[in-house]
């Protein structure tokens, strides 16, 4: 069986050798950089805004029990059904159950990474409910039967030509190379789905404890339709989405838009505080909020990395990550790609299988620098490396111990550097072959030549003269 590490390594190798793909991703991100900086510069003080955002999320996450109880009490008081899901299976079963009980025929979905995390679409489809993604990018990757490439820009890896071919094949539409025409094809298809669907499933960007509301951020209007027309609305919410106060949105909405898509504010930022209330003309008859743990509490228990739960899923760290830009979103094999995915996946899905992601980093720190809520991302990758080393096998431990033993003994170190100079010509003979102990490195790169004289030697000579 292929391990996630092996799959990652193979896919990363394929993608990094794919120059057109790399150029494509770079080009797609250039526009984002320009817009992001433009909007950041409109802030009077972006850095202080980040400090404040980090402070607020720290408060929320470190008093999570209290805020969740407040959130739930407010929502329940207004007729919302709350379900606490310990894991993905709990959440899937509950949502499929709601669909069954209400004899739902079709389900319309708005974009939700949490739903991707629990593979909700598969579960609904297997139970016999047609489930359609309504976000354009998500719809495209759903038609291609592949996971989102990026947690904010799901179809950024595709060209208009590929999308036109896809629509032609699946929807029988006329080929076009105009993005507007392609968007209108999806709009027309989706309008029918919206009007027919009897259950809408959404995620949530924020959960406001003080007033008992969820907040959904989007540009297309699909989430608004998902939550307006069907008679049942189910929102799947990770327990870490809490914000203490309604007024916190005045900071978080502009920051999410700026960091996430280089906008001053996303087109629709909508708050839902219950099903249709007395005196209101429309809206869902049933409103279900599914609160998902799914090992978030394990990350919470790691005080050192607890701030990874501050994440607002803006995707800014992906956009600046040299690794993401080269290996591409699909190589990760995770729901959450890029630096944040590499940090949290070992917690959510097990360190043993996902520790390799901690190595998918140059530790340049661009992710930490760009994060609007100041998560210490690249240090957490180091923490995960350390944790993985602690759980290392006997052979690995011997290797690292030996290295440490040598590095602490100057005489031995000097001998080793001298030996390396002599041994290198021999290594050249076997470079890249299976006899080469450094094969992983030398297969695609030449090993740098060991210098004639070490720094120690040069230093000594210099002092003498």
């Amino acid at each position, binding site marked *: 069986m292929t391990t996630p590490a092996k799959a990652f390594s193979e896919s990363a190798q394929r993608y990094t050798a794919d120059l057109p793909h790399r150029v494509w991703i770079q080009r797609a991100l250039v526009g984002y950089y320009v817009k992001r900086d433009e909007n950041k510069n409109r802030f009077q003080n972006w850095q202080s805004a980040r400090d404040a955002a980090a402070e607020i999320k720290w408060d929320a996450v470190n008093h999570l029990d209290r805020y969740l109880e407040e959130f739930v009490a407010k929502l329940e008081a207004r007729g919302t059904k709350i379900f606490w899901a310990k894991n993905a299976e709990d959440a899937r079963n509950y949502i499929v159950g709601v669909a069954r009980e209400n004899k739902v025929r079709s389900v319309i979905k708005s974009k939700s990474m949490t739903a991707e995390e629990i593979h909700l679409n598969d579960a609904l489809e297997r139970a016999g409910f047609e489930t359609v993604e309504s976000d354009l990018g998500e719809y495209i990757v759903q038609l291609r039967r592949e996971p989102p490439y990026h947690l904010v820009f799901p179809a950024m890896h595709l060209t208009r030509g590929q999308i036109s071919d896809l629509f032609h094949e699946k929807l029988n539409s006329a080929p076009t190379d105009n993005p507007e025409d392609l968007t209108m094809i*999806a709009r027309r298809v989706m309008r029918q789905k919206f009007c027919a669907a009897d259950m809408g499933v959404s995620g949530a960007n924020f959960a406001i404890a003080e007033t008992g509301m969820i907040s959904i951020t989007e540009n297309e209007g699909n989430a608004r339709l998902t939550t307006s027309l069907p008679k049942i609305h189910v929102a799947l919410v990770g327990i870490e989405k809490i914000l203490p106060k309604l007024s916190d949105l005045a900071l978080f909405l502009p920051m999410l838009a700026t960091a996430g898509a280089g906008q001053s504010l996303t087109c629709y930022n909508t708050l839902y505080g219950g099903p249709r209330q007395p005196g209101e003309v429309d809206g869902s008859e049933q409103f279900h909020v599914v609160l998902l743990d799914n090992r978030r509490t394990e990350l919470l228990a790691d005080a050192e990395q607890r701030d990874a739960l501050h994440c607002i899923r803006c995707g800014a760290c992906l956009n600046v990550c040299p690794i993401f830009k080269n290996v591409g979103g699909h190589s990760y094999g995770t729901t959450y790609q890029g630096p944040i995915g590499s940090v949290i996946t070992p917690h959510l899905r097990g360190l043993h299988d996902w520790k390799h992601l901690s190595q998918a980093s140059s530790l340049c720190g661009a992710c930490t620098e760009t994060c609007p809520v100041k998560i210490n991302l690249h240090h957490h990758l180091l923490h995960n490396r350390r944790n993985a080393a602690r759980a290392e096998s006997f052979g690995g431990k011997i290797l690292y111990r030996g290295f440490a033993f040598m590095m602490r003994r100057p005489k031995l170190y000097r001998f080793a550097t001298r030996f390396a100079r002599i041994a290198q010509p021999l290594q050249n003979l076997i470079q890249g072959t299976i006899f080469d102990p450094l094969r992983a490195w030398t297969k695609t790169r030449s090993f740098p030549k060991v210098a004639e004289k070490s720094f120690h030697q040069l230093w000594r000579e210099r002092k003498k003269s």
Partner: protein
Amino acid sequence: MTNREIILGRIREALKISAPHPAFSEKAQIPSPPNLFQSSFQKWLPPVGETSDEQIELFRQNSENLKTDFRVCADVNEAVQYVKTLAVENHWGKIGTHHGELTNAVARELNLPKVQTDSGYAIADLESCDAGLTECESLIAQTGSVLVSAHSAGGRALSVLPPHHIVLARKNQMTPNLSIALQRAREKFGDTFPSFLSFITGPSRTGDIERILVLGAHGPKKLTILILP
């Protein structure tokens, strides 16, 4: 034990070990947490002028960037004339609207079939409207947004289902930023908020195909905002 007890138990267990407080809070120049939470964040967010004229001007600039059709009307008549022009230019056959002081004043002058959402409506009926005419809670200068609610905009769907959304607002509904807009909503509703509140910032859009901006993804392709005295 219920799931609720289990999850809350896990959280309380996890929080027994306290996490390091963000390092920056020790720096003198950052306000201490109590001040931080009381502030309205405005000192860090993009600047907004204090006078009504400055705010309307900022709203106009933002509208231009967002491709919102924004206009200040001298009186109701001017608004009526403008909406009539839109109706002719865009060949409207039917509009959706709701009862309100401003919407009624404009809608009764339009010689078009109407879907009033107030007393309930059929989805297909509203979907076939060419425009939705609504009022709003407030306008936000800083971001060029309009805050609508289930109460002020004829429900949830009227402001998103028809392809052209027209908002009628009073000049005194202009607010500087999101904080003040939310505060006003709180003053108005107290603890009984409507089940739906939405900040609308420009017409519906997407960049999902090659990051190229396309207006009218699923919601309105056009957004018109008219300010009356």
